[in-house]
Structure formats: structure tokens, C-alpha cells
């Protein structure tokens, strides 16, 4: 029972992991992106529809990534080049992304005779839980570590790669300098605009994959409007919970994933209304926000220039 709970928590936390990693990539280079929800929605739509028409899982993932990159490109153009307000741009991206995704969904639905959109068995098999001989058959460990769908492993791999990128590579150091003090980075000869674009676009792509997870895995390959359902917002808060560390984001996402599935695993005898469980992630998010804003420890706080657009010739 407990083992099942852990497995369910990890599955439910995976889209959060992608969203959080995308947002970390944005904030590390100084951009507070409130458009995660929208970028995830666009990725959800692109991924699902590509999967629906091509029946190829990896192409679907690539499409979700590309759609995320494109939506982030719009965001980057508005905030980096045109220096639009980041909060407003992000919120716009969210509204636009959800709307676009639902619009395409409804349009495609109208073309079907059955009135439902469901991925074929063929592609469902491709993205089903992996099975590694011997390893996956181990008791407990096999189930706990070696028998998830491919998304989970991709997410963890991206998180570890990002951790390495920020802490052990020169480009990562440069990106962090941009997030902390873009003027200093510029004076040091770092290509601020180029790196900002690059990181924002990759971050958007990661968000997009996370979005695709929602209709393809969580909803069991069935298209439902608003499939991302607020996960993007929790991801923004999770960045704070993870204290801007991709490695801690893995842990944070799975904790939040656990909270989301908790209601199915608490014995029926416990007299707590289901609504309380639905509320939990948001309550915890609020608590985390309060706690982190109270204890401000340096180095584990938001990049200093996050949310501020950089204009070289400003005095």
C-alpha cells in the first residue's frame, strides 16, 4: 500500500518537476515567468495532438518541447528585447496558452465522430512503464526505481543535468551572474541577451514536456480541456520551495505529488472531507511562501535581478 502511494506520488509529481525546472531556468537568468501554466498548456496540446496523429511517442515529446520553446520565444522577445513588464507578460502567456490549447482541443474534437479524443493503444504502449530485465523484477526496488514511464526518467535526468550546469560549468556561472547582476555580467563580456534568450527558450521547452504529461499520462491518453489544471502555478511556488536548486526540485516535486494523491491512500475510516486534500498543496505552498520570506538566507534566495529587465544604457 505504502509502496503504491510512493509510486503514485512520483507519477503525480512529474509534471510539477518539469514545470519547476523550467521556471528555475527562467529565474536563474533573471526572468520571473508567471506564464508556466500557459507554456505547459501549449506543450500539452502540441504533445497530445502530435501523438494522436503520428502515433510516435518521441515525436510527441519533441513537439511538446518545441511548442514550449516557441511560446517562451514570444515571452523572451517581449521581456528581453521589448523590455515589457515580466509579470504582465507572464500572466498574458498563461491566459493565452490555456485558451489556445482548449481552442485547438475543441476544434479537433469536433472532427471526431465519437466525441472523444483518445491516443491509440500503439502509442500508449510506447510510453507505458519501462521494463528492464532483472532490475525491474527486483522486489520493492524494482517497483520503486525501475518501472516508471519514460517521462519520469527524462525529468530526473534534466534536473541532474541542470544542477551540473549551474554549479560546475562556466556557462552556468555566467547565467547565474546575469540573474544576479546583469550589468556586471555585461561588463565582464558575457553575452547577456543571447544567454537570456537561450535559457528562457530551453526553460519553456522543459515546461512544454511537463504539460504533455498531463493529458498523455495523468489523464490516461484522453483529451480533456484544462488538463494542466493549475499545476503551472504550483510549479512557480515550488521553485521557492526548492530554493532555486534543480536537485532539490526533484524532492520538492515528489512531495507535492504525494500531497496531490494523498486522498486516495488515506483509509476511508479517517473522517476528513476530500476537499481538504485538494486544498493541501495550495495551503503548503502558502506556508512555504511565508516561511521562505521570513528566513532570508543568502545564496538560497531568489536571484537578485529576477523580475527586472536589463537595459544597458540605463543610468
Amino acid at each position, binding site marked *: 500500500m505504502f509502496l503504491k502511494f510512493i509510486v503514485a506520488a512520483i507519477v503525480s509529481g512529474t509534471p510539477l518537476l518539469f514545470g519547476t525546472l523550467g521556471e528555475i531556468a527562467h529565474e536563474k537568468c533573471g526572468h520571473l515567468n508567471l506564464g508556466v501554466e500557459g507554456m505547459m498548456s501549449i506543450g500539452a496540446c502540441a504533445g497530445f495532438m502530435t501523438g494522436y496523429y503520428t502515433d510516435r511517442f518521441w515525436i510527441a515529446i519533441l513537439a511538446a518541447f518545441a511548442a514550449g520553446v516557441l511560446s517562451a520565444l514570444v515571452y523572451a522577445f517581449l521581456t528581453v528585447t521589448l523590455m515589457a513588464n515580466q509579470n504582465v507578460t507572464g500572466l498574458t502567456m498563461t491566459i493565452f496558452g490555456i485558451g489556445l490549447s482548449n481552442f485547438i482541443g475543441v476544434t479537433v474534437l469536433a472532427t471526431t465522430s465519437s466525441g472523444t479524443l483518445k491516443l491509440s493503444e500503439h502509442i500508449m504502449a510506447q510510453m507505458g512503464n519501462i521494463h528492464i530485465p532483472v532490475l525491474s523484477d527486483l522486489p520493492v526496488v524494482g517497483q520503486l526505481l525501475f518501472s516508471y514511464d519514460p517521462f519520469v526518467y527524462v525529468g530526473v535526468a534534466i534536473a541532474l543535468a541542470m544542477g551540473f550546469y549551474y554549479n*560546475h*560549468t*562556466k556557462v552556468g*556561472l*555566467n547565467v*547565474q*551572474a546575469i540573474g*544576479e*547582476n546583469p*550589468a*556586471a*555580467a*555585461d*561588463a*565582464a*563580456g*558575457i553575452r547577456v541577451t543571447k544567454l537570456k534568450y537561450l535559457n528562457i527558450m530551453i526553460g519553456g521547452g522543459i515546461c512544454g514536456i511537463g504539460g504533455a504529461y498531463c493529458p498523455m499520462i495523468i489523464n490516461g491518453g484522453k483529451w480533456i480541456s484544462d488538463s494542466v489544471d493549475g499545476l503551472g502555478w504550483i510549479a512557480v511556488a515550488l521553485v521557492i520551495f526548492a530554493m532555486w536548486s534543480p536537485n532539490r526540485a526533484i524532492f520538492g516535486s515528489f512531495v507535492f505529488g504525494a500531497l496531490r494523491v494523498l486522498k486516495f491512500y488515506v483509509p476511508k475510516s479517517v473522517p476528513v472531507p476530500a476537499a481538504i486534500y485538494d486544498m493541501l498543496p495550495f495551503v503548503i505552498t502558502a506556508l512555504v511562501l511565508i516561511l521562505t520570506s521570513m528566513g532570508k538566507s*543568502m*545564496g538560497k534566495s531568489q536571484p*537578485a535581478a529576477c523580475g527586472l529587465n536589463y537595459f*544597458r*544604457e540605463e543610468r
Partner: protein
Amino acid sequence: MEKTQENSCAIQCQGIRKVFGTVVANDNIDLEVRYGEILALLGENGSGKTTLMNMLSGIYHPDEGRILIDGQQVDISCPTDAMRLGIGMIHQHFKLVDVFSAMDNIVLGTEEKKIKPKILRQKILDISHQFGLEVDPDKKIRQMSVSEKQTVEILKVLYRGARILILDEPTAVLTPQETEKLFAILRSMREQGAAIIIISHKLHEVMDISDRVTILRKGKSIETVNTAETNEKALTEKMVGRPVTLEIERPQTEKHERILDVYHLTVEREDGTTALDDVSFTINTGEILGVAGVAGSGQKELCESIAGLMPVKEGAILHKKQDIIRKTPSEIIELGISMSFVPEDRLGMGLVASMGMTDNMLLKTYHRGKGPFIDRKPNRELAERLVKELEIVTPDVETPVRLMSGGNVQKVLLGREIESDPNLLITAYPVRGLDINSSYLIYDLLNEQKKKQVAILFIGEDLDVLLELSDRIMVLCHGQITGIVDAKEVTKEQIGLMMTGSRAEEVLGNE
């Protein structure tokens, strides 16, 4: 002089012109620096010094003219180009990442592939020894003092192999002792063949450190002179374009009454550290009390606690024998205590950057208006009068103040405070970043108030000015008063020692 003639040219600027919109920032500028010399660049605010230097460091691109490095014509289109050509700029506002270590800041943005921290550390220490710099490569920038940060900035450009150094007002934030140390480093670099351009407003420093001086005025290069063949007065006249007197008045006033008594004032910052530690002093009417101290010694907290903006932990502040500690800022303003605090970013406190002069005047008067509506007219008249009286340069009184130059912003701020007819005027760094002309205008303004029996608390950074303008000087060090001395009977060096913690008794006793 013969020595410099032998040395080859590092930078030659020929006929440089740069236009921003309709404003000509640089017009036909010629400049020449040789290896093994220190060139001072002198000019008022808005004379185009920083614009010119920004073109050398790749931040702007000239519209016309040629730049030659080592005799070769070059095109510097970004900071990386400048670095490749061996030009390193040390900006007035440090360009350092606070949460990184000195080492990370030094290697930031360099082209090299990742190298072992051990080798890197050694390389940094080698450069440090070569020029007599002192720095701990692993120390975080946010834990450093201002002069340490500057050392890191210098190391940063040296590490990139700069042979041409540009320093933009490097001494503005240093104590006299730290300035001496910096100059020793610069001299050592000159000995080793570097070409150095230093921008400074402080004439005695220009006289002290430079070999030649190039004077800019209104975007044009006026003249280049050998430092040994000129003096402070001649330089100023070339810079301003007309004869000037360099003396700051210290008018004597007659009636001195105690107006503000501060007793055992202790103030804590938000993070729990002590900002002011048992501070006691008195200000009299018709007196300027100067406050000297390294930046961050408690000056800001002193101003703010008197103005009622900061909670006081212990002690009392009596204004005309009335305790004002529990009073709200507006009650304190009603008593005639006025503060014009100009923090490092100039606009942070006191003025709203995006508002025009009229609306900034309004900030202090609107609550006196009757009814729910705002009457802009008297405020516009006031703004227009200030423009005339203080010779403020602005296209319009509705132009946002952030678009005005530093000197003009200061005038707006001080002008508004004086207009409210205070009996105690607190002013911090009123001439920060201002050129000589504007500075003297501000000193005159303050002296005028002093003659009207206003008590003035003047927080300053240029010790020469403090010594000439103030009647008494109070020195702060880590929130404690190390001495309150008569400005006429103390030297700059003694103040400098007190700023770093020596007590007045020790310092003056040695004489």
C-alpha cells in the same frame, strides 16, 4: 616628461563625436594616452567624460571619429572587444556579483575553458603580489568593504590582461588612507608600463597622481596640460570656462542656541546588527555640523532616526527640549526638521523619479490642501521659481526628475526642503557625483541657510569639503562617535584615522 615622450601611444582618439537623440554628448574629442603614464580626465558633469570612456570600453559606439589602439585603428563594438584590445574599465558603481566569491567574479565571462581552482587561485595571487594588491580569492563580495571590492575590480581587469586601465571616479567612496593605497597601486602599474586614465572631480588628487590632464568642457576636449606645469585654480578655470574662486565660505554666525540634543542614541538595523551605538551630540542654530565616516558607519540610520523613519532602541532625541522619538515623520516635519537624504542611487529617497518637479513639490504640500482635490498651480509656480533661483536645467517642470542630471536633481531636492522653512536641515551627500560648479552652488545654498540661523547636519564624504564648510565635525566609525572636533583645528589625516576607529583623544593627543 622626456620619459613619457619615449613611450608609445596606447590610445589615440581622433575627432570622436557621439550624439544621443538631439544631445551632442561628445563633439570632436581628441585624446591621447601613452604607456607608462597616468592621464587624468577632468570635466564637469555632462561634459562627456563617461560617454567617452564608455566608447572605449565598448558600451557605446562613436558616431564619428577614429580610435587607435597601439597605433592601429580599431572598432570596439562590445565589452569583449575592449577586453581583447587590453582595455579594462573600473566603473564607478562596481560591476560585481554580490553572492559570488572574488575568484568567481574575476573569471566571470572569460573565454578560457574551466581551469582548476587551485591554479586559478595561484594566478590571482601572483597578479596581486605583482602590483601590491591584497585580496582573499574565496571571500564573497557581499562580505567585503568598499575598498576590497575595488581591489577585486582592478584584479578583474588585470586578470584579463588589461594594459590600459580606465578608472571612473575611483576615490569617491574611499577614505584618505585607502585612496593613498590605491594610488600606490596605480603608480606601481605605471612603473610596469600600464596606461591609466583616471576620472576624478577631486583636483588635489588629480594633481597628486596624474602626469597629464585632459580637460573636457561641454563635450569638447579643451586642452591637455602637464600636471607639473599647472595648478588647481588653472585647471578649474579651464574646466568651467571662466575664472572661479575655489574657496568655500565659512560664514560666522552670532546666536547659537541648542536646537537638537541627542542622548545615548542606540539604533538597530532590521537584521539585528547595531547601527548606532550610544551616540550623543548637540547641534546649535546657525551651525553646520559635519559628519565624517566610511560609508555604512551609521550615517543613514542617524538621519532616519532623527527624521522618525527608524525605530530607536535606546536614548533620547530632544528638539527644543521636546522628545521627538515617538513622533511620526509628519509631526517631526511640522516641528521644522527637514531631511534631504541622497542615497547612492540619488533618487531612492526624497524624490519620486518618474514624477516631474511639480508633482515632487506636491508630495510635501498636498496634505495641507483643503478638500479632496489637488491644486497643482501653487506647486507649479514653486517649481518654476526654484528653476529660476537655483538655475536648474530642465526642459520643463513636468519632465520626470529621473531624466535630469545629478546636479539638478540635488538642487530640486534641497530647494524643496529649504522652501519648507526648516529650523534643522539634515542633508546627506548633497554633492555626490556633482561637478565643481554645482557643488559650490549647493555649498552656497547651505551657507545661506546657516546665516538664517538654521542648524545643519551635513553628512559628507569629501573630507576637504567637510573641513572647509563645517563648524564642527563629528566622526562616526561602526556606529560609534570617535570624536567631535573643531573643523578649524583638525587635519584630514586625523579625521581619516578617526574614521577607522582611533579616538579623538589619541589622534589629537599625538600632535
